[in-house]
């Protein structure tokens, strides 16, 4: 699980120094960078802090007695969530892969620039050259091309060998063969003094293909850089009550059944348990999707994932962590991910047709020339090999990654992060969209109702008190009132409200109806607060979780795109029905638990539907993992985001529809690119079979087909509108 990495002190750092690696969420720009780095450097004992914005990894150098928890605490004060970096999760492994690809790309780029210059001279200037010069230039080309092609081709060779060992041939097999054969054939021609050397092709092949590989890597790295995990939720510390009545701080995973644990306002309960002492409002929206705060009393069972809102409570841990609801959801997620891993990508499907076809044709050409036409071994070999070279899947290798890079860039600028490599392909196939309600269709936090009906003076006076508190309703009230003064003498009475005394002696109260002395039938538990000043009649503020501003519009857009839209929510029937009405969604299911959500998706899948699941709560995480493709808003829990293929930012829901449209455009471009590659091969194969392909034609065809495929991928910019 999450572990601490202490690396021994390096030579340039003082003795006793430690290096602590943290993963920081939410840092996006220069502002965050300065805030985090200078904020941590100000911590005692810290000598240096450096944040990698791409991976979110923060390296802190400190003197020996440094406690990672104080740094995590400091980051929380600055407004960033952080946890200890787990070396086993190995983001660094991905970085190594990227570096290796870049080195190969640079080497083959150097090879192309140098070798093409030489072979062009050989091809065009052959008549003006003496045989000695020609031989020297050929050998120079061989000298540079052989090591560069072999080095740059190594990722393909390794992958080809792995796939042959596994008993099936992937696209890297014909690529490896083409590289090796073009080198071999060129050596043969050079020895013979012939002109048909393919040294340029030998370096150009890995160069063009590596561009595709690197683009593909960039897309995949973006997907994994948010290396969040459901485990992170369990890697928290709790305060346990000892036999002698004192408190000790322990890791949540060390909690045993029967332990008594104290939670104060704002803490997330990491284990299931029963309330022993105290009474508090709980935010369970992440677990059930229910928006109204839940009042927990002594003797009640609480499930892991709930957040304590106002007063401290004591809990007796029920089950060990592995049996908690969070852990059970974790296992559901794993099961869902396994189902999804069986998805076969477009490029792999193309490879399944391409590989046997091209190998069969090359063999056939060789046999026909050798046996039927009696052309001699050399000519037959040359024609067979030249077919392998010209049909090499450069365009195919670029077809998908180029489209993906453009599409992800396009979506990124609209606030949608594409997290999985094949997410776009799967999204393009979706025909049902299942939405969670709380936090997905709605904003997931309370908003003041009928703000216009409330006198502005009252609102402003109440807001002075509200600004003191972190209670969700107080925050919502302060937000509705905008910026303004704070009542400095105000004090918060947990579980009741806020009290302040004016300089002239007037008492101001903001809180529960009973707290301010108002008499009213309960509206909806936890969804209203009252304000009273002195003996004036109290004023009531009601709150509700409201739909995202463009929810209805988005549902229309999705229906226009041909998707069936559904709501599956854990919230109560009436609330879900209201949301469904407002967004014109006919199919809705309310009051379902996480397991029932996954059952619902399984039923849809059994009926042959491809489901797009959009959700944000912990109760959605398993459903997100199980769905054909999934999205979650940027406000979702890490554990939930980790299972989504797409994450969209901001208050707008329209990016969901935009992503669907963009993914369909992307899929169309990919198919066009495959079509183009096929058409190109339909011309190249007969030419090669007839022995008409020269090295010059081969290299021109190779470069131009790759260029056309890339240009086609760029066409998404112009066409992508909803």
């Amino acid at each position, binding site marked *: 699980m999450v572990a601490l990495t202490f690396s021994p002190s390096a030579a340039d750092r003082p003795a006793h120094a430690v290096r602590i690696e943290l993963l920081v969420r939410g840092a996006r*720009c*220069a502002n965050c*960078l*300065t805030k985090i780095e200078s904020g941590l450097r100000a911590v005692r004992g810290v000598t240096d802090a450096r*944040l*990698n*914005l*791409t*991976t979110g990894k923060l390296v802190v150098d400190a003197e020996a007695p440094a406690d990672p928890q104080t740094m995590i605490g400091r980051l929380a004060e600055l407004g960033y969530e952080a946890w200890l970096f787990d070396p086993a999760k190995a983001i660094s492994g991905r*970085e190594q892969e990227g*570096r290796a690809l*870049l*080195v190969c790309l*640079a*080497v083959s780029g*150097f090879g192309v*620039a*140098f070798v093409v*210059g*030489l072979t062009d001279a050989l091809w065009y200037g052959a008549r003006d050259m003496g045989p000695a*010069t020609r031989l*020297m230039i050929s050998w*120079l080309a061989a000298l*540079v091309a052989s090591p560069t092609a072999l080095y740059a081709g190594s990722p393909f060779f390794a992958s080809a060998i792995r796939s042959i060992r596994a008993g099936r041939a992937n696209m890297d097999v014909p690529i490896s063969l083409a590289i090796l054969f073009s080198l071999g054939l060129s050596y043969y021609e050079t020895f013979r003094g012939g002109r048909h050397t393919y040294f340029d092709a030998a370096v150009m092949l890995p160069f063009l293909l590596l561009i595709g590989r690197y683009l593909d890597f960039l897309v995949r790295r973006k997907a994994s850089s948010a290396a969040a995990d459901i485990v992170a939720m369990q890697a928290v510390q709790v305060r346990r009550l000892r036999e002698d009545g004192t408190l000790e701080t322990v890791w949540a995973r060390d909690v045993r059944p029967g332990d008594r644990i104290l939670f104060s306002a704002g803490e997330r309960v990491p284990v299931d348990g029963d309330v022993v002492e105290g009474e508090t409002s709980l935010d369970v929206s992440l677990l059930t999707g229910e928006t109204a705060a839940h009042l927990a009393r002594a003797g009640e069972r609480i499930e892991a994932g709930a957040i304590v809102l106002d007063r401290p409570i004591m809990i007796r841990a029920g089950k060990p962590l592995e049996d908690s609801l969070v852990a059970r959801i974790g296992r559901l997620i794993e099961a869902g991910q396994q189902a999804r891993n069986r998805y076969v990508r477009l490029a792999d499907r193309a490879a399944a047709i391409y590989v046997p076809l091209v190998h069969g044709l090359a063999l056939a050409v060789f046999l026909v020339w050798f046996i039927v036409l009696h052309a001699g071994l050399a000519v037959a070999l040359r024609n067979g090999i030249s077919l392998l070279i010209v049909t090499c899947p450069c365009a195919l290798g670029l077809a998908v990654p180029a489209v993906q890079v453009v599409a992800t860039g396009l979506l990124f600028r609209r606030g949608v992060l594409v997290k999985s490599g094949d997410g776009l392909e799967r999204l393009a196939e979706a025909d049902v969209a299942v939405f969670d309600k709380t936090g997905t269709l709605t904003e997931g936090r309370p908003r003041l109702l009928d703000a216009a009906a409330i006198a502005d003076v009252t609102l402003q006076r109440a807001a002075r008190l509200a600004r003191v508190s972190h209670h969700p309703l107080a925050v919502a009230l302060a937000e509705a009132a905008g910026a303004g003064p704070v009542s400095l003498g105000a004090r918060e009475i947990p579980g009741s409200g806020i009290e302040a005394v004016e300089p002239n002696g007037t008492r101001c109260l903001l809180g529960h109806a009973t707290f301010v002395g108002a008499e009213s039938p309960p509206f909806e538990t936890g969804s209203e607060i009252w304000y009273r000043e002195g003996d004036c009649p109290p004023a009531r503020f009601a709150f509700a979780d409201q739909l995202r501003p463009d929810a209805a519009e988005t549902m229309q857009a999705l229906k226009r795109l041909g998707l069936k839209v559904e709501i599956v929510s854990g919230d109560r029937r009436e609330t879900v029905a209201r949301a469904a009405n407002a967004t014109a969604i006919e199919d809705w299911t309310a009051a379902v638990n996480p397991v029932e959500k996954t059952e619902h998706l399984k039923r849809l899948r059994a009926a042959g539907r491809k489901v797009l699941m959009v959700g944000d709560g912990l109760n959605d995480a398993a459903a997100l993992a199980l769905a054909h493709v999934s999205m979650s808003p940027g406000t979702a829990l890490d554990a939930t985001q980790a299972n989504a293929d797409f994450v969209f930012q901001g208050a707008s829901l329209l990016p969901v529809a935009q992503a669907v449209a963009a993914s369909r455009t992307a899929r169309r471009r990919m198919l066009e690119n495959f079509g183009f590659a096929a058409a190109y091969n339909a011309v190249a194969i007969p030419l090669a079979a007839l022995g008409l392909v020269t090295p010059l034609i081969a290299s021109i065809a190779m470069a131009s087909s790759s260029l056309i495929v890339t240009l086609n991928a760029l066409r998404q910019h112009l066409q992508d509108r909803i």
Partner: protein
Amino acid sequence: MPGLGLIILAALLLGLGGLAAFIWALKSGQYDDLEGASWRILIDEDPPVDTQRHRRE
């Protein structure tokens, strides 16, 4: 003819030099955080200059 050999040799060395420089830059971590690097140029590393004191001196 010796001129040709010299030119090819020079081109080869220049190319290899460029390649070596790139690999050095890569290995020393300069390509690890392109996103952060693009923001870092906007950050003032030095504390703001105290103009008052400058004038007095």
